[in-house]
C-alpha cells in the first residue's frame, strides 16, 4: 500500500461532508495534517503478519439470544426520570413533521 496523500479537492470534499467552512489559507494546513494522519495508518503495512489468522473477536460468541419472555424492567417513573419534558406518562418531544 503506497503512502496515501490527500489533494486540496479531497480536503474540500471532506469539509463539505462535515459541514465545515474552511478559509483558503487553512486548506493547505489541513491538507498536510490530514495527509500525515491518514498516511500514518499505512505504517501498519510494515507489520509482518504471515501465518497470523485475522482476528476480529476472541470470545467466540455468535448470535447471543435470550428467551423471549417478559420480565420486570423499570417503573414508568424511573424510565421518565431524565426526560426534559413529559406528558401524562409519555416522553414529550418537538414535532418532526408539521
Amino acid at each position, binding site marked *: 500500500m503506497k503512502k496515501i496523500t490527500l489533494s486540496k479537492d479531497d480536503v474540500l470534499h471532506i469539509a463539505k461532508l462535515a459541514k465545515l467552512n474552511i478559509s483558503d489559507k487553512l486548506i493547505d494546513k489541513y491538507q498536510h495534517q490530514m495527509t500525515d494522519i491518514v498516511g500514518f495508518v499505512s505504517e501498519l503495512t510494515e507489520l509482518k503478519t504471515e501465518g497470523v489468522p485475522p482476528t476480529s*473477536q*476472541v*470470545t467466540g*460468541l455468535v448470535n*447471543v439470544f*435470550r428467551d423471549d419472555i417478559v420480565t420486570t424492567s*423499570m417503573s414508568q417513573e*424511573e*424510565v421518565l*426520570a*431524565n426526560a426534559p419534558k413529559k406528558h401524562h406518562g409519555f416522553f414529550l418531544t418537538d414535532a418532526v413533521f408539521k
Partner: protein
Amino acid sequence: MLLDLSIKQLSEGLKNKRFSSLDLVNECYESIDKLNPEINAFITLLDKGEVIKKAKEADKKTKDNILQGIPFVIKDPFSTKGIRTTAGSNVLGNYIPQYNSTVYQKIIDAGAILIGKTNMDAWGHGASTENTDFNPTKNPWDLTRVAGGSSGGNAAAITARMAAFAIGEDTGGSIRNPSGWCNITGLKVTYGRVSRYGVISYVSSFDTMGPMAKNAEDCAIILKQIAGYDNKDATSYNGIVPDYVSLLDKNIQGKKFRPKSVKRVVDEIAYMLKAGFKEINFLDDTFSTDLNRAKLICEEIIRRGLKFPWHPLNGMRVDRVDSELFSLMKESGCYKVSFGIESGNQEILDRINKGIKLEQVIRAVKLAKKEGFETFGYFMLGLPGETESTMKETVRFAKKLKLDMAKFNITIPLPGTEIFKEWDEKGCIKTKDWAKYNFYAPYEAIYEHPTVPHSILNKSYRNAYLAFYFDPSFLLRRFFGGIKRGVLLRDIKLFFKTSWFN
C-alpha cells in the same frame, strides 16, 4: 498514610481493628480538600455526610469480603443509580441513571465505599484527560503534566491518596496509559471478561472494564470481584473465571533465550572503551550458552581491533566450551575463565540436574589452563542430599583441578526452583520473607537443611576455604603465578587481609 497500604493490607487492618473504614474515608477527604483543587480528579463528589454514614455502617458489619469498607472511585461512564453520570461531557451534565452498571453493582455488593465519579476525556475520546468538559486532570507527580487518559481522574485519585482503588475503562489504552503516567497499576482485561452493561460505550466491540490500584495483587483482588458472565451483556464471556489471586505466584520466567546480537554486543563494548573504561566483564549467564555466538563475538572483537582485558564474570558451563572458543577468547583479550562446577560428587550433580560429568570438568579446566587462562571454580555446599563426606569430596575435587581460585557458596533455595519446591514440601523452608533471601544473607534464617545440620554445613564451609587456600601446592602455584603476572605483593597483602578464621 493509611492509603499507602494495599487493599490486602487495608483489609487486614480493618479486620484487626487497627483502623476503621471511617479513618480511611476521612483520609480520602483530607487529600481531596488539600489536593483536588489543583489536580481536579473528580467530576462528581458524593455527599460527604452520606459517605461517612456508609463508612460507619461498614465498621459495624462483620468483614466478609476483602473489599468491604474500602474507599474507591469510579470513572464517569459507569452508570451509578441516583448519582450523576456524565462520561466527561456536558451533553450528560444533568443525567442521573436509574440503574447501576453491573461492575459498579458488584463492587458495592462487596461493601466498598464510593467517594466519587472521576474525570475523563469526554466519551472516552482521548488519552490525556484534557478533552473533558470539566477541566483537565493534572498529574499529581508534576502539575505541569497530564495524568494520561482517558481514565486520568482514576489514576490521579489513587496516586494522590483520594481512594484505595478505582474501576476504569480501557478501549485503546485508557487504563494502561494513565496508570503508567501516574505510576500505579492498571489492567486491561480481555474483551468479554467483565460486563459492559450500564457503561456508556466508546467502541462497543473494544471497550473493557478493569481495575486500577497500587499493585498487581490489588488488581487481581478487584478483578476476581468484577469478572464473570452477565446475561445483560450479550458480549459477556460465559466461561470459568480463574482465581487470579492464587495465580499471582506463578513463575514469570520464560523459556526463550533472547540474546543481544553480536553486532550490538561489540558496539556496546566499543562505546564503553571509547568512554574510557579499561576492562569490561561479561555478565551473561552463561557466555557460551550459544557456543557459536560466543565465538562470533570474540571474532568481531578481534576484527575491529579492540584491545582490552575481559573475562566472563559468571561461570561458564564446562560442556559449552571447546579449544576453538578458548583460543578465540584468548586472542580477543580474555585472561580468566570461571566455571560453574558446583560439586565433586557425580551423584549430587545428577540430583540437581546440572547435566555435566566430572570428566567434562577436568577436561574443560585442562583446556583453559593450556590456553593460559587464570581459572576460577564456583562450588556449592549444602546441595540436596549432601553430607559432610560429599562436601569433603567437592573440596578434594577443587584441589585436584589445580584452579587459581575457588569460591564455595552455601546453597540458598530460591522460590520458583525445584530445590525450593522440594524443600518446602519437606517443611524445611523457615521463612517466605523474600527480603531475607540475599546472596550473602545468613542461610540459617531461611531453611533447615534436610540432610546436613547447620553446624556441619558451617564447619564444611570454613574448612573448604582453609583446605583449598592453604594447600601447599596451591600456595606454590599462586606464588609463582604471582611473580609471573607481577601481582605477588598484592596477593600477599590480600592473603593477610582475609579473615580466614571467622
